[in-house]
């Protein structure tokens, strides 16, 4: 984001009848019931994040031998308990864990077992019991289930993730240039899009978010993904530092949206690049770099939210985990159970979420993957019920269809 153009934006509301004041009414509408302050941030790690590296079970007797050269050495993992540590790249998450503000669910999975990225992401984000069971995202349905209350949601990224897609129009935003063109154009387009069910609502929401972004970013410099050729420091390490800085400032910007008076309460962020079939590395390497970025993003959110962190829950979830054994190419193939991270200032202190099935040969799922002991829907149900106050019946039927048999995880918040 570069400079803002208040002239154009103030004209927008009048010219296009876009209802800027309506789009972000959220918090003000139910400020009196305490739930208006609650924030939920979902980070979808796409590609199959390797749970056994995110929260390595260094105390599990089979871990080191299964993992071979990609095992995180026990001495380098950041300790959580006698079995688990965190990857050394997750220093920010670890600091939160020490304060009781971060927990792991180390053997969690969606109900999908096909090991296909696309199927598994569909099931994770739609909240369905099976693939293509439902066409909208469960967070979108959660907005409806919030009943008479109006809850605003925002996705971060240039394309719309399934998790927030659906009948309720949600906002989206990504870093990048926005313009200062003709002050008339948005109004003219709004007229031309008046009968257009796709472009009309998208434009209106986009303009409202654009205005908000100017405030959210304050005086921060324009952000762009790191581009080869413009390193901020020397060599590869320079790129990594630059990537961390971008991720951290992205986190702060997203926090800036959420802390505005009518800002979104529900935010979805996608982080790509977890499909580590080859050369994933151990304490350092390809996966470690991704985790550094994830840690920086979370740190930025934490810093940017400030006081509001107390009322925030962050869930980091992935579509599936990876094989327990290292494969032939120093990586891991598509697996089943993985780790979800749960963070936030209002978490109850506690150990791991769900049971640890161990990595014993007879405990592995289909003799190759971490066996899931917890359904991802149960984790989200627990968060949506206890943190956002959603009705349990709605969670069992509408938000997660046909899921009455999947119990909400209790006592997280």
């Amino acid at each position, binding site marked *: 984001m570069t400079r803002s153009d208040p002239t154009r934006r103030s004209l927008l509301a009048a010219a296009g009848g876009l209802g800027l004041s309506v789009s972000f009414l959220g918090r003000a509408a139910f400020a009196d019931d305490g739930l208006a302050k609650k924030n939920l941030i979902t980070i979808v790690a*796409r*590609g199959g994040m390797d749970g056994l590296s995110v929260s390595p079970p260094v105390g599990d007797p089979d871990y080191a031998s299964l993992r071979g050269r990609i095992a995180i050495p026990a001495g380098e993992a950041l300790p959580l308990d006698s079995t688990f540590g965190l990857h050394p790249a997750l220093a920010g998450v670890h600091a939160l864990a020490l304060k009781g503000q971060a927990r792991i669910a180390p053997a969690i999975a969606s109900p999908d077992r096909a*090991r*296909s*990225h*696309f*199927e598994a992401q569909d099931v994770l984000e739609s909240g369905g019991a099976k693939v293509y069971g439902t066409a909208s995202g469960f967070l979108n349905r959660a907005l409806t289930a919030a009943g008479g209350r109006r809850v605003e949601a925002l*996705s971060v*990224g*240039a*394309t*719309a993730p399934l998790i927030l*897609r659906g009948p309720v129009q*949600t*906002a*989206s*935003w*990504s870093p*990048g*240039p*926005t*313009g200062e*063109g*003709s002050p008339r*154009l*948005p109004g*003219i*387009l709004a*007229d*031309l*899009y008046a009968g*257009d069910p*796709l*472009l009309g*609502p*998208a*434009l*209106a929401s*986009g303009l409202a*978010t*654009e205005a908000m972004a100017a405030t959210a970013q304050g005086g921060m410099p324009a952000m762009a*993904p790191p581009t*080869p*050729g413009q*390193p901020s420091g*020397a*060599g*590869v390490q*320079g*790129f990594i530092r630059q990537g961390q800085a971008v991720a951290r400032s992205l986190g702060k910007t997203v926090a800036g949206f959420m802390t505005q008076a009518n800002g979104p309460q529900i935010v979805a962020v996608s982080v790509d690049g977890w*499909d580590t*079939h*080859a050369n994933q590395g151990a304490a350092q390497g390809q996966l470690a770099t991704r985790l550094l970025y994830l840690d920086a993003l979370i740190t930025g959110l934490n810093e940017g939210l400030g006081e509001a962190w107390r009322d925030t829950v962050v869930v980091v979830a992935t579509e599936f985990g990876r094989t327990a054994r*290292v*494969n*032939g*190419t120093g*990586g891991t*193939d598509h697996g089943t159970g993985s780790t979800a991270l749960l963070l936030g200032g209002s978490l109850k202190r506690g150990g791991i979420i769900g049971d640890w099935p161990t990595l014993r040969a007879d405990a592995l799922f*289909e003799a190759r993957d971490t066996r899931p002991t917890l359904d991802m829907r149960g984790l989200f149900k627990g968060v949506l019920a206890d943190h956002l106050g959603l009705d349990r019946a709605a969670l069992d039927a509408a938000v997660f269809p046909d899921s009455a048999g999947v119990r909400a995880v209790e006592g997280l918040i």
Partner: protein
Amino acid sequence: MASSNDLTAAIAVTRFGLGARPGEIAEVTADPGRWLSSQIRPAEGAEQPQQDPELASTRIKAFRVYQVDRRMARDGGETPADRDPVQIAARMLREGTAVDFLARARLAATTKQGFRERWALFWANHFTVSAVKLITATVAGPFEQEAIRPRVFGRFEDLLVASSAHPAMLLYLDQAQSVGPRSQAAAFLRRRPMPGIGGGLNENLAREILELHTVGVDAGYSQEDVTEFARALTGWSVGGQREVADQQGEYVFRANIHEPGARTVMGKTYKADDVGQAAAILKDLAAHPKTARHISWKIARHFVADDPPPSLAARIEAAWIASGGHLTRVAEALISAPEAWDPAPRKLKTPYEFLISSWRAIGGQPGAIEHISPPLRSMGMQAFSPPSPKGWSDEAVTWAAPDAIIKRMTWAEGFSAIVAGELDTNATAAAALGPRLTEPVRLAVARAESRQEALSILLMSPEFQRR
């Protein structure tokens, strides 16, 4: 077909092609069907963006040299100033990937055979090689040029084999290093382990061929089928620095890492036959009826509607089955299907289609990579970089996020500020959309305050955003 030839021509050029250049709809009006069918060239395939391009093997060889330098730098050794790995990586992207992408965009912006190019882009996306790694960034362009474009009107089986055996695909989906656990090389490595060299299977390519390139995820195959296919594919690799010169960077079959023995995939047993084993599996996958169904539906969705008429997909599928997967017959079935000519435009253009059609509308073309790469990235479609092996999404819901529409508007304004100059924007609008131009948009363009605003309105109009 639609009632008037004018409208038919406008649909031909915008829905099946890449958008109209000035005068193009008028030229096509004489015979829109002939205009399309004459672009189907079984012998030549698609047009090539570059006439004498750098080969994938050349790029891979250069990358191997870079890898050695990078390892030296990482180990604290000294690299000569002119071989700084970061600089070299930047140069590979600038002089390789960027050149390839710009050439491809310029071809798309200027070709008189828009359908032929769209058809090539469909297949390049079907067999995605994404620039997510530096090595694949340098070979994504050559892959399209060498494996895909020559074969897009030939037999699907040939396209599948060419894609699966191309070094770019073998590197992108990690096949090149996959080692049969009972191969000679694995036995050797067990006796004498070597640091950094594994000795096992990688099932990435096998899974994506089944799931994405051929039968589709609901075809009923199991994890064991994936693993068996992966075992059969071991040995399909890329020549390295120890190979003789003319094999470096090329496809090689390595018998010593191939898993010995017969394999069973989807109920059929394939005898041990070195490279022939996986080739036989590919042949059967290409001929599988689920492949015909899966891809026919994808073609209908790509060209006509996110939710295409089942009868359209069925027509394409019938042509596929009857011809044994001959893509000339498949393309003919698409363009001759009445369902494909419904006047209502139901596809939102992808960012690439939007940018290219904008240049076509003004009779221009991108002059530098900076004209096309940053806007594509901001709209979520970074050059040569689909987010996964599934390729770019073909659904409006992906591309019509509120932020993406703002990014389109911002780009349209900037573009118009530069190019609107002395343009007769009323004529531009008429020529770009022909009878598809609606009265409200025609009026809004005519009443704009400036040429810049007029062109922005045209480019952002609902009918220009769709095809």
